[in-house]
């Protein structure tokens, strides 16, 4: 009796619960049971539930599917601790607005920790990208279509292949057509038994440099029982491999040139000071570091215009490092001419002082210098050869600086005086050149160029008090190898050393490559002590 009453009460309770919840859900989600279930599944901590949430949204053809998935990918969806609902949060800061997904109501964020971002892991990210790619096949932009085909190729089942086959005839963009052809050929090779179709597939794949094409050919060559087809695919593989080797060589050349350009930039200021004045400046690395820190400071002063910051930093770094250089020359080096050992020791001491000054002013930790948008990214020529933009700009910048310096030295009055003083100081003074002033300006020029090198280096390496130490040895290496005082020597030496290091590196590793290059320079100096392009003239013999 009591049991029956209890059971009836329980079912009554259940009924009211259902009624109440349906009332509230009717209130909250006017038309969106899909969104409600999406929200429920996404708040679960179990990965399979989250995967189901994504596929639910995809299968439901909800009008907001793509935008919601994009927001999930970008990390803009958050759960609010207060009501466990999903919110759209463009900026996760106090005082900002958070929009509830279900009904569009907005809240202001009072405590940042109350909103927890809905995180996605790699597997879910791949799933989302796949869903987006399926719709991306029909997008307006060819770049999106290309991206979509590439994404679908990762995991091409027969359904996706069918989709690509549908889109193929009407595709207008060449690159997208080629990639689609490759995707279809890979599928044919793996699945079909028709020899004619397979021959066509092998032909298509032999023209492509996509790694997936090569892999599928390799797999086919191993697994096929048809000797004619096996020979054909082997030949296609050799053809592809030759092309890949060629592009790999090009890539190594590019890496070598970019390393060379960094070396040239770092060393060219030293060539001028060492060449003209015979001064061994151990503080040269620190002048590079000062240029890098100037870039950091400029970026702190203009945080909203990172793109412009580099253009402002270049002249700023030139001025700052140049002034420091002039101060060093006037304050210390001027008194030590003709005494190379003392100059070396004194400038070494100055380098330590500068390092510690930077540590005290900024902090011993590294500083972050951001790369502007126009310098990030890659230039893809084909699937096996792509060059990074930041290094490309640095190479161009290096040549710009080099030719500017050449112009200064060959065409300006200062350049004339600098060359005169470096060839024969006594004669130049007799001709009325103020050699002391020329020394000061030369040192300033060399230091300024070091500062500009620092701006370039700040984009590719850590900006810290030890930045100078990593480049001083390399700079001296380039100057000694190229010949003291010769700009062209520095260029050739820097590029040679850069390319040589990068050629050796794949075989021996980074550490041994550096050692081998140093050993090579040691032997070279035995034969030609004055470097590749020594200075000529009687006065230079001293």
């Amino acid at each position, binding site marked *: 009796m009591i049991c029956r009453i209890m059971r009836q009460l329980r079912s009554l309770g259940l009924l009211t619960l259902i009624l109440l919840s349906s009332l509230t859900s009717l209130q909250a989600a006017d038309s969106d049971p899909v969104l409600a279930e999406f929200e429920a599944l996404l708040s679960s901590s179990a990965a399979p539930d989250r995967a189901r949430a994504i596929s639910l949204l995809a299968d439901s053809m909800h009008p907001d599917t793509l935008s919601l998935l994009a927001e999930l990918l970008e990390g803009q969806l958050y759960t609010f601790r207060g009501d466990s609902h999903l919110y759209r949060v463009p900026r996760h800061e106090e005082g900002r607005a958070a929009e509830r997904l279900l009904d569009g109501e907005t809240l202001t964020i009072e405590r940042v920790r109350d909103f927890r971002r809905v995180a996605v892991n*790699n597997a879910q990210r791949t799933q989302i*990208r796949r869903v987006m790619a399926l719709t991306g096949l029909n997008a307006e932009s060819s770049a999106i279509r290309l991206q979509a085909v590439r994404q679908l190729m990762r995991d091409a089942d027969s359904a996706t292949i069918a989709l690509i086959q549908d889109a193929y005839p009407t595709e207008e963009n060449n690159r997208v057509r080629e990639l689609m052809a490759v995707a279809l050929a890979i599928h044919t090779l793996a699945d079909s038994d028709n020899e004619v179709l397979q021959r066509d597939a092998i032909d298509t794949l032999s023209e492509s440099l996509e790694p997936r094409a090569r892999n599928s050919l390799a797999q086919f060559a191993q697994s096929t029982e048809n000797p004619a087809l096996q020979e054909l695919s082997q030949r296609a593989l050799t053809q592809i491999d030759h092309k890949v080797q060629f592009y790999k060589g090009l890539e190594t050349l590019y890496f070598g040139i970019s390393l060379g350009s*960094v070396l040239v930039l770092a060393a060219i200021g030293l060539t001028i000071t060492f060449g003209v004045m015979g001064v061994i400046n151990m503080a040269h690395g620190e002048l590079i570091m000062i240029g890098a820190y100037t870039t950091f400071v400029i970026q702190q002063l203009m945080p909203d215009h990172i793109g412009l910051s580099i253009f402002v930093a270049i002249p700023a770094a030139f001025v700052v490092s140049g002034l420091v250089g002039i101060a060093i020359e006037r304050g210390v080096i001027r008194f030590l001419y003709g005494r190379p050992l003392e100059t070396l020791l004194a400038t070494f001491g100055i380098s330590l002082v500068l390092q510690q000054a930077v540590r005290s002013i900024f902090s011993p930790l590294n500083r*972050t210098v951001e790369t502007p948008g126009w310098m990030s990214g890659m230039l893809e020529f084909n699937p096996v050869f792509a060059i*990074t933009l930041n290094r490309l700009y640095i190479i161009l910048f290096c040549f710009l600086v080099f030719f500017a310096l050449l112009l200064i030295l060959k065409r300006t009055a200062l350049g004339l005086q600098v060359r005169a003083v470096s060839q024969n100081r006594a004669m130049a003074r007799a001709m009325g050149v103020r050699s002391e002033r020329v020394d000061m300006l030369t040192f300033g020029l060399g230091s300024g160029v070091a500062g500009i090198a620092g701006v370039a280096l700040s984009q590719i390496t850590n900006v810290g008090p030890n930045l100078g130490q990593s480049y001083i040895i390399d700079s001296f290496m380039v100057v000694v190898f190229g010949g003291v005082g010769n700009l062209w020597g520095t260029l050739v030496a820097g590029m040679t050393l850069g390319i040589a290091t990068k050629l050796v590196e794949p075989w021996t590793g980074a550490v041994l490559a550096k050692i081998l290059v140093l050993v090579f320079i040691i032997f070279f100096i035995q034969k030609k002590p004055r470097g590749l392009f020594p200075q000529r003239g009687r006065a230079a013999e001293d």
Partner: protein
Amino acid sequence: MKQIKTKLATASCALALSIAAITAQADTIKVGVLHSLSGTMAISETTLKDTMLMLIEEQNAKGGLLGKQLEAVVVDPASDWPLFAERARELLERDQVAAIFGTWTSVSRKSVLPVVEELNGLLFYPVQYEGEESSRNVIYTGAAPNQQAIPAVDYLMNELGIERWVLAGTDYVYPRTTNRILEAYLKQMGVAEDDIMINYTPFGHSDWQTIVSDIRRFGSAGKKTAVVSTINGDANVPFYRELGAQGVSAEDIPVIAFSVGEEELSGIDTAPLVGHLAAWNYFMSVDTEENDAFIEKWHDFIGDTNRVTNDPMEAHYIGFNLWVEAVNKAGTTDTEAVQEAIIGVTVPNLTGSYAALMPNHHITKPVLIGEIQADGQFEVVWQTPSTVVGDAWSDYLEGSKDIISDWRKPLLCGNYNVVTKTCSGQSYE
């Protein structure tokens, strides 16, 4: 008369001074903090110095230890490995510290090891390392390879189906030994030699173009590839930048790092790194009450709510609590007494479980695998169901699979070979 007066005056002065000196010394217990505050490792170690200062301040607020206040003695070995040994000697001989909390890289620990063993000091080492060591004078609160490297490789193999492996590390003892262990483990699990690529770079290496390009090429041979990274210090910054610049996404070739945590990520743009992995025993994003309380205390102490917490900080938290409890148990800060008392001490960790100090001077830790998120935090994607006991001597290397370490009486040996039944290395017969 005058002579007697001056003599009395000087004597009483000396007495007063010496009493003052003795009482001043007797009033504080000195704790050494040996972390690099400059150089290539400063990016990782400075925050540990601050953590120790916070823990000491908190303990002093609770009344100190054994009735005395704790005093932190902070020195800067500047990422210079021989300087670590010098500073450790200073701390033990000149400052007479009761314990040292410090070092990060294994080479710095190896430099300090002979000094603490000679002067009978106690070093609490908070960082994951390569094992193959167990000293009576070191408490290892960081992960041994079986608490980080091996579970990480298991996760990649089983959950992600990785078949090709790139082992990239900085050129010193920790990556070299860890990679030896991993190579042996992978080969035991049936991975072919062609499917393993090993690469070493110097500290602070900044030109990653060739290496990242080689990784990309190695990874496009058709089998799923992953990079196991033991790269240390600020070389990580240009490495991850180059990965981002060359478009190596985590969905293609995931990189799992053992020495990159919240602190290392806080200085770089993490957008291109989203989805790459790290294996630790603690993440700042772990949702427990103890962790929330610790993070709040840290933010109050450091005065900046943007600062992050990481695994070595938790290790210092555990190590410091272990030391305090052992000292209270022993009733003295004497190294010998603390060494005896500390084995078996159990303290709570920040991820909801307990850390117990085992006889081999390692602790029990859970293993967490996390993915990098856009805000520099980690999202836990996998964890061990319970804590793992640290094993100092790897079971996968020929020379060490028969060795155990047990610092309890009567064995008192760090390198005990169970097959030949002999004790080698630091032994107390």
